[in-house]
């Protein structure tokens, strides 16, 4: 019984707050990197693949990459969603990927793919943070 409790305690022992913060920031910058930092390689690779594929499809469909703006509310929300992709968004801005405006029908799909990739990346980064600080049980 004690052995089982010790094993459970080892599994759920929270990491230092520094590691939790690192998992959050690294997970935001590179999709899945927060999980990899915590030793969850398979989860990290799956998250990386899913988010990068979604973001890439969005760019390939000529989806809009939002710039910082104080204009229309939906444009501001679009920027917030894009920013969630972290390093991918910064890379897209630096390389000039994506379109400035939606010009073809499928580009609207592309815009949604890019925004959702960013939002999923935020969820994944927060999940890595929760795993690191013990809020979520590590299986």
């Amino acid at each position, binding site marked *: 019984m004690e052995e089982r409790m010790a094993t459970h305690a080892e599994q759920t022992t929270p990491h230092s707050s520094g590691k939790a913060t690192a998992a959050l920031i690294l997970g935001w910058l590179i999709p899945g990197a927060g*999980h990899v930092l915590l030793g969850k390689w398979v*989860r990290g690779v*799956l*998250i990386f*693949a*899913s*988010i990068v*594929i*979604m973001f890439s*499809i969005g760019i*390939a*469909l000529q989806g809009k990459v939002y710039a910082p703006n104080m204009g229309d509310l939906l444009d501001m929300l679009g920027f917030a969603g894009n920013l969630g992709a972290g390093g991918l968004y910064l890379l897209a801005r630096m390389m000039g990927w994506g379109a400035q405006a939606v010009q073809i029908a*499928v580009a609207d*799909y592309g815009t*949604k*793919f890019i925004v*959702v*990739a960013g939002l*999923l990346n935020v*969820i*994944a980064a*927060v*999940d890595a943070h929760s795993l690191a600080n013990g809020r*979520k*049980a*590590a*299986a």
Partner: protein
Amino acid sequence: MMLSHFSAVLLFALCVSVVFGITQRTEPRKMALFAGYCFILFVGGTIIASWVMWLIKR
């Protein structure tokens, strides 16, 4: 790149379901089950909505 509406739905559902499964459950088996559940709901919901729109148009 050109995608049909349905292939876009399949890719979207697959990627989102994987991330939902990993982040919303704690055990690997439950993650896989939840990812499958989300995938079916995404694709099934889209097909049902498509048929509803088809019926409205008629």
